C-alpha cells in the first residue's frame, strides 16, 4: 500500500467519528439484510458490509456541501452524507416517507440536499456525472469537491476513461475512488483485467498519480482522502484512488458468495474494520465506554428507523404520474 497512516496525526474526535460512521453503517445494513430476509425489503440490495471504512474515511475528510456519487452499493455512502436514516430505511421498504418516495429503492438512494447526488445502478455511468458536478463547482467558484465511488468492475467501462480524461484536462475538483473488493459480481476482477491494480495502474494514462490505499483502515483512508479532497479544493485537479477492500457477503442479497476461497474470506473478515478499528482506538487510549455508547446509540437509531419505516404508509398510486417532468408535462398523454 502506497499510503501508511500515522494514526496519531489524526485527532481523536475525527477517529471516534469515523467509528461512529462505521457502526451506523454496519448496523443499518445488517438490519436491511434481516428485513430483506423477512420479505420487507423488496427487489434486491447490495450490502457494503466490510467496506465501510472507505466511506467513513472520505466522509470525515469532506465538507458538508461537497458532493458524493455512488453505485447501487450505496446505502452507506448516502447515509454518511447525512441523509436521515429513517427515510433511507423507509425507501428500502418502499414507503411513502422514503427518501425518494418509493420511486428509487435500494439501488437509487439519493439525497440532493445532503450532496448525495445519486446511486447509479448502471456500472460506471456516474463517473461522467461526477465530472459535471465538479465542472459546475469550478464554474461557480464554490470550492466544492465531488467524490465519486465505484467498483473495480467500472474500470473497464468506457465512461471511466472518458470521465478521467476530461476531469484531468479540465483540472476539475473531483476525486475518483475505486472500491476494489476484488470481485465484480461473481468474476474476480483480475481474471478480466490486464493490470494488477485496475484503477491505480491506469492513472498515468490521465497524467495522474496511481494511489493505492488499505480500504479496511479508516486512518489510512482518511489520510488519502484529506490529501485528494484538499488538492481538488485547492485547484490541484482530480485524483484516482484505489482502495483495496472486501465485501463480507455475496454480490447481492441472493448470492452466498461461495465462489470465493474460504481462506480468502477468513483473511479479510479478520481485518473487519468494525472489529479492528475500535480495538485500535482502545489501544490508543479512547475510553471503551465511549465506543460502547456509540454502538448502543447506533442500535437505537436503527430500531427507530425500522419502526418509523414500518409505521409509514405505502405510497399513493397517484404519485406514479408525478415528477416525470418538472412541470407535470406528462399530462399530454397518460
Amino acid at each position, binding site marked *: 500500500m502506497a499510503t501508511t497512516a500515522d494514526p496519531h496525526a489524526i485527532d481523536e474526535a475525527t477517529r471516534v467519528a469515523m467509528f461512529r460512521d462505521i457502526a451506523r453503517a454496519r448496523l443499518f445494513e445488517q438490519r436491511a439484510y434481516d428485513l430483506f430476509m423477512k420479505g420487507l425489503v423488496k427487489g434486491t440490495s447490495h450490502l457494503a458490509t466490510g467496506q465501510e471504512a472507505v466511506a467513513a474515511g472520505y466522509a470525515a475528510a469532506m465538507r458538508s456541501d461537497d458532493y458524493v456519487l455512488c453505485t447501487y452499493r450505496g446505502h452507506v455512502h448516502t447515509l454518511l452524507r447525512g441523509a436521515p436514516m429513517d427515510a433511507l430505511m423507509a425507501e428500502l421498504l418502499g414507503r411513502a416517507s422514503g427518501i425518494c418516495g418509493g420511486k428509487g429503492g435500494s439501488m437509487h438512494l*439519493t439525497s440532493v440536499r445532503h450532496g448525495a447526488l445519486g446511486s447509479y445502478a448502471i456500472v460506471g455511468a456516474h463517473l461522467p456525472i461526477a465530472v*459535471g458536478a465538479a465542472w459546475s463547482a469550478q464554474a461557480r467558484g464554490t470550492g466544492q469537491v465531488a467524490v465519486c465511488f465505484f467498483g473495480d468492475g467500472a474500470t473497464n467501462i468506457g465512461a471511466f476513461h*472518458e*470521465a478521467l480524461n476530461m476531469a484531468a484536462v479540465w483540472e476539475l475538483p473531483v476525486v475518483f475512488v475505486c472500491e476494489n473488493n476484488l470481485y465484480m459480481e461473481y468474476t474476480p476482477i483480475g481474471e478480466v483485467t490486464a493490470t494488477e491494480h485496475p484503477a491505480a495502474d491506469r492513472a498515468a494514462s490521465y497524467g495522474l498519480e496511481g494511489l493505492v490505499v488499505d480500504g479496511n483502515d479508516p486512518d489510512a483512508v482518511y489520510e488519502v482522502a484529506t490529501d485528494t479532497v484538499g488538492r481538488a479544493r485547492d485547484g490541484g485537479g482530480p485524483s484516482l484512488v484505489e482502495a483495496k477492500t472486501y465485501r463480507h457477503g455475496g454480490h447481492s442479497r441472493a448470492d452466498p458468495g461461495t465462489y470465493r476461497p474460504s481462506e480468502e474470506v477468513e483473511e479479510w473478515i479478520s481485518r473487519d474494520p468494525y472489529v479492528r478499528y475500535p480495538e485500535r482506538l482502545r489501544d490508543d487510549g479512547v475510553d471503551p465506554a465511549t465506543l460502547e455508547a456509540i454502538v448502543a446509540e447506533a442500535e437505537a437509531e436503527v430500531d427507530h428507523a425500522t419502526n418509523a419505516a414500518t409505521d409509514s404508509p405505502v405510497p399513493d398510486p397517484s404519485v406514479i404520474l*408525478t415528477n416525470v*417532468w418538472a412541470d407535470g408535462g406528462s399530462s*399530454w398523454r397518460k
Partner: protein
Amino acid sequence: MAEVTYREAVTMGMAQEMRRDDRVYFIGEDVAAAGGVFKTTPGLQDEFGDRRVRDTPISEEAITGAVMGAAMTGLRPVAEIMFSDFYATCWDIVANQMAKTRYMTDGQTSLPLVLRGANGGGLRFGAQHSQAVENWAMAIPGLKVVAPSTPRDVIGLLAASIRDPDPVIFLEQKSLYPSKGEVPDGEHLDELGKATVVREGSDVTIVALAAMVPRALTAAEQLAEEGVSAEVVDVRSLVPLDASTILASVGKTARLVTVEENPRLCGWGAEIVSLVAEEGFWHLDGPIVRVTSPHVPLPSADELEDVTLPTAERVVDAVRRALA
C-alpha cells in the same frame, strides 16, 4: 425583422440566452474556436470566453454526463452532439440517467439542460450521419424532444429549451441550416408543446416536422392547383405533444396525412395516428395515410437518398389517397 439562416439562428438563440443568464454554459466537440462543424456557434467563445464555451474531447458519455452533473448543481448547460447518430454512444446517460433522475429521486432535482445538434438526412452523409432519431428520444419518459423547421422557431424554441427545467433533446435538421427566414428583432421566446398551423386549409390536415414542413408546404401549393385545400401543421415539439392543435385541425378537415423522414416502424407519425384514431375517430371521413422513409438505413448516393426520404410528390400522392 431580419432575414437570417437557420444556422445563424442557432448562434443567435445561444447568444441571446448566454447574455441573459450567466448560468448557461456551452460545451461540445469543435464548438469553441472552430464554431462547430456546421458553423452553428461561431463567435460564441469570443463573446462569452473560454470558461463558458469549451471544446471537449471526443467523449459523448463525458459530455452528456458533464451537462447532467452540472445541471443538478446549479448550471443550465447546453452541449452539442455533433450528429444525432452519436446519441447511440451515450444513450445510457441520456436514457437511463438524465431521463429518469428527476423521477427516481421523486423530484429532488431538476435537470435544466439542452442537448442540441444536427439531425436528419438530405446531405448524402449515409446511414451513420443522417438518421432522424427523434423517435429514440420520444420513447423515453422524462426527455423533451424539440425539432424546429424555421429560423424563427430555432431561436424561440432554443430559448424555451434552455429556460426549461427538464432535459431537452433539441434536434436541428441539418439540411435546413442554409435555409432562410425572418426572425423578430430583440429577444425572442417561444413555448414548448405548441404546434403551429403554418398553412390554413379545409380539406386535409398534413402533420409534419422539421425538414418535412417545407416539403408539406410545397405539396400543399401543388394541391391547391388541383383545388385541394391542405392545412399544414408543424408539430415542432414531440414531447410535450400538442394533441389539441392536431385534433382541432383534423376536426376541421376530417382527413389526416402525417409526414416524417425517419424509418417507418414506430415512427412518431404512428403515435399521432393512434391519437387521432382514439380521440378523433368520429371526425374522420377517410383513411389516414402515413408518409415515411421505408424501414431501411438511409443510403448515401443522390439517387438513393432522394427516393428514400419523403418528397413533396409523395405527400401529394398521399393526400390524394386520403381524399379518395
